[in-house]
């Protein structure tokens, strides 16, 4: 006993991780290890979800059915979305939050380290369950990621498995969110006031509140599906006095804030990177915070713009059109602030900045198509077409995912202590940027010309642009292989990274050594460090 305690103590003093693989990775309560686990998991899901997207684009390469049965095609669109939203983007952001929030606010760890471990380790089981539905009788869920009844209720054994998987993902997200809120509210080092927090912490704080408010709503909706299917309730069946549209209202009450859950941390990362590489403080810090908060609030009162064709009363349609258009105002404020940050700066183009600039342009394009979709009469034409597919992929791929890549390229030297191969990272950037546009831009045309989404085969008039889009998809997919290669090389070695990796960087994380030691900020940062680190505002 005494010996064990002593060993423990020694370990602590050396600030090193435990030796065994199980002790180090499975039983870890260290925010950095858990952050790494989240990100590795997200990367794995990104490639599995991406492979599913390539099945979709291969089938759509030309008209006619060449490779898959329509039912399997529907399984692919459903699983691709679930994997990317819940498996790739959300865990990636939780991973970055785990790594960076304690470093940025001068805290020694997340506030609830054991819950932190638990919330990660739920995820592999949730996705194992989800992926295993591919092998059960009846196939995996094929009713779309929105799981609309009554179609979803036609699913076989996969239905309860998928619903239980969603429950587990929800529990994991809620625990992650609680951890972020408690950490940001209680663990800030003395002197790090709320309005001194970096924007990444602010956007994550608001994201975490959104998560806590909407994940239970999703859990409720899918539980009602479950009881409708197995226990004779009729929440969503008109035959028993229910209403299929009720599900859509509940789902999108979750679903719209969900898209901001995916994108708000991206706003945070971009708000860190653009000032760094413009060598100039973020323009309008406080208005950024207020804009983020207003977007978070508005996200709760726009949900039915996903459902303009269900047959809503005129007043309802007008309300949701106007509230949706209002989101353009705070989003515009953000884009203008980022532009003003670059104005009169001293700009250099390292990989994180390249991804952030690309985010700025292409996310804005996604914002424009979003504004078009808000115009209800025009939405009757856009709804459920490839125009919508183009819109949300512009927001999520060169939006959320490019911001994740920007963040990884920004903080990777801090995490590993090495610089990565800049040339490879720039190739990764240019190939991704070119192919993401070849992939998604033509989908605007397809949608406007009348191609519905979620179809495995199409009329020959859509052949050309589908072929272009599929070429873009394969180019994009192959380009992504450069990302894990660049990361792996950087983990293994490379030029020593300075403590303050980027000349123009500000923030407490750059006051620490590179690589960040296993335990950091065990004694809080000094006021001098906080003032040196904090961007002037």
């Amino acid at each position: 006993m005494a010996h064990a305690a002593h060993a423990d103590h020694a370990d602590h003093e050396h600030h090193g991780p435990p030796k065994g693989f199980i002790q180090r990775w499975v039983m870890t309560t260290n925010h950095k290890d858990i952050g790494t686990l989240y990100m590795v998991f997200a990367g794995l899901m990104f490639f599995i979800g991406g492979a599913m997207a390539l099945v979709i684009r291969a089938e759509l390469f030309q008209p006619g059915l060449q490779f898959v049965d329509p039912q399997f095609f529907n399984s692919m669109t459903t699983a691709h979305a679930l994997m990317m939203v819940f498996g790739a983007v959300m865990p990636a952001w939780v991973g970055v939050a785990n790594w960076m929030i304690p470093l940025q606010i001068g805290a020694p760890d997340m506030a609830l380290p054991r819950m932190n471990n638990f919330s990660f380790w739920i995820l592999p089981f949730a996705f194992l369950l989800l992926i295993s539905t591919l092998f059960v009788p009846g196939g995996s869920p094929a009713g779309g990621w929105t799981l609309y009844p009554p179609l979803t209720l036609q699913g076989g054994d996969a239905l309860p498995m998928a619903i239980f998987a969603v429950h587990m993902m929800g529990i994991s997200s809620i625990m992650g969110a609680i951890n972020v809120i408690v950490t940001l509210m209680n663990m800030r080092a003395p002197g790090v006031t709320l309005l001194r927090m970096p924007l990444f912490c602010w956007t994550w704080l608001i994201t975490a509140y959104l998560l806590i408010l909407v994940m239970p709503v999703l859990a409720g909706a899918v539980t009602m599906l479950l009881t409708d299917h197995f226990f004779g309730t009729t929440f969503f069946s008109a035959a028993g006095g229910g209403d299929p549209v009720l599900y859509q209202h509940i789902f999108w009450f979750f679903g719209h804030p969900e898209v901001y859950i995916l994108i708000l941390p991206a706003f945070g990362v971009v708000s860190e990177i653009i000032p760094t590489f413009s060598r100039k403080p973020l323009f309008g810090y406080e208005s950024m915070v207020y804009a983020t908060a207003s977007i978070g609030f508005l996200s709760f009162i726009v949900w039915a713009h996903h459902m303009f064709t269900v047959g809503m009363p005129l007043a309802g349609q007008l309300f949701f059109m106007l509230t949706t258009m209002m989101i353009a105002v705070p989003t515009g404020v953000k884009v203008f602030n980022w532009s003003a940050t670059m104005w009169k700066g001293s700009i250099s183009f390292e990989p994180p900045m390249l991804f952030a600039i690309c985010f700025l342009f292409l996310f804005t394009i996604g914002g424009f198509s979003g504004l078009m979709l808000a115009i209800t009469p025009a939405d009757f034409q856009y709804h459920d077409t490839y125009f919508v597919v183009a819109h949300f992929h512009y927001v999520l791929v060169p939006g959320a995912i490019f911001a994740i890549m920007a963040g990884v390229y920004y903080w990777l030297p801090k995490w590993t202590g090495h610089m990565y191969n800049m040339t490879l990272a720039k190739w990764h950037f240019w190939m991704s940027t070119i192919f993401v546009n070849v992939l998604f831009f033509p989908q605007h045309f397809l949608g406007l010309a009348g191609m519905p989404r979620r179809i495995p085969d199409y009329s020959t008039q859509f052949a050309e642009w589908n072929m272009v889009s599929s070429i873009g998809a394969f180019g994009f997919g192959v380009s992504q292989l450069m990302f894990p290669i660049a990361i792996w090389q950087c983990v293994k070695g490379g030029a020593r990274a300075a403590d303050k990796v980027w000349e123009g960087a500000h923030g407490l994380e750059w006051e620490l050594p590179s690589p960040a030691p296993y335990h950091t900020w065990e004694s809080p940062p000094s006021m001098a460090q906080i003032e040196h680190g904090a961007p002037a505002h």
Partner: protein
Amino acid sequence: MLRKSAFLGAVTAALAVLAAPAHAAWSGLNMPVGVTTLSGEIHGLHMLILWVCVAIAIVVFGWMIYSLVKFRKSQGAVPDTQMLHSTKAEIIWTIIPVAILVAMAVPAASTLIKIEDDRGAQVTIKVTGYQWKWQYEYLDEGFSYFSTLARDSDAARQLDSGVDPKVVPNYLLNVDNALVVPVGRKVRLLLTSQDVIHAWWVPDLAVKKDAIPGVMNQLWFEIQPDKVGVYRGQCAELCGRDHGFMPIVVEAKSAEDYAAWVASKKPAPAAAPAAEAAAPAAAAVTTTPAANAG
């Protein structure tokens, strides 16, 4: 230098790929103007918001590109680190977007109000979605029929059918029995479903609405008098395995041809009163039963 030329090469390649289908007309890139009394207005809204977005993009992207070029560190740019915020600028870039949005919302709301004004329908047809076909019931005329994917398309769309879709006329957009409607009349569709949610959409008619089991939705359109023709669309709400294979075809006929078609579809005049009521109108046109403008 090497890197620059590699980049230019990649861009050129991408442009070449994008330019390849340039022969596809503008109509293959944009929303159709459509043929109903409201479709042009909806198309106009779409073009208006599109050009507003393009204009904003030119200003905002122009500003960004200017900054990215002008304030490069490699060109010796010195940062102005005192530029932290400007209440004036922030007020301006809040007010201007609000003004643009209000200017957009007014015509959008006015069109929406017109779309929702379904009074005075002259023809009412009940549309029921099934996995995977449509049923059309002419409520005033007392007949109904199903509309399913045309047989040649259905044969060609099977996995590895060996049939080139390009040789099938209107591949996946053709049906056995089209919905027939008169031009110049306000046609009201009552939409519902027997199984899962479907959505009835014809781009040229600028209407799309969900067909939901247990719910009766409605929409209306009035095809312009000179737009006799055939208009095609598809189910727009994922409805299972063959969601991609339940197209919609609308045949718009002149009033006379429509009346003749209705007469030809009606069940044999067994009941005297019904035959009596229909006789005068039908008699005038049944002389040319084969007339099929389109």
